[in-house]
């Protein structure tokens, strides 16, 4: 069973289009995240939701809109795609372990590679 699954794995689209990436986790975790990894492998957090509530919103263009219909799902919708949006987008989830000084250990999906032409 895949713990964190993202679809689609690959997405090729034209500039100006709108696209969505879906994420689901079956781990029962309360918190879900979207990270963006650029061509240099830099990984930056974009959003975090805890029990469907937005708790982290980094400096991300408002063309990016996350949606969490329930705590097992966190989707990412991107409007008016630009060339610079090309990257690999990773979904992740975590369940804070209070026994480890509040450590959040993340479980990642396999990534969705977005290519904007």
């Amino acid at each position: 069973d895949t713990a964190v699954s993202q679809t689609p794995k690959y997405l090729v689209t034209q500039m100006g289009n709108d696209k969505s990436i879906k994420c689901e986790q079956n781990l029962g975790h309360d918190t879900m995240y979207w990270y963006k990894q650029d061509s240099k492998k830099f990984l930056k957090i974009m959003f975090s939701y805890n029990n469907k509530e937005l708790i982290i919103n980094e400096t991300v263009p408002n063309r990016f809109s996350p949606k969490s219909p329930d705590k097992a799902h966190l989707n990412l919708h991107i409007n008016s795609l630009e060339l610079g949006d090309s990257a690999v987008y990773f979904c992740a989830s975590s369940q804070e372990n209070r026994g480890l000084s509040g450590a959040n250990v993340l479980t990642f999906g396999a990534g969705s590679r977005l290519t904007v032409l």
Partner: protein
Amino acid sequence: SQQGEEDPQALSIQEGENATMNCSYKTSINNLQWYRQNSGRGLVHLILIRSNEREKHSGRLRVTLDTSKKSSSLLITASRAADTASYFCATPSIGTDKLIFGTGTRLQVFP
């Protein structure tokens, strides 16, 4: 930026050799984590070390943490070709659920 930096950026070794990767971070932390990313895959959690620990082992992995120098190292002993991957350190942003990742070290192990 809180983002950690890793050193070296890339490392190539022969099977059987040890690989050491270093991570420096900028703020106070209560724990530090290491993750591995195989090509085309998501990151996988390897090991977590708490701020009151100096060293931790897991199989062929050994992690050290020096909070006075704000640095950590990951040692992989007796490396294998299957260890070829990118390795990232990650530190929590205090008071949030945000995990900040370092710049990564790309390890290539030649058979």
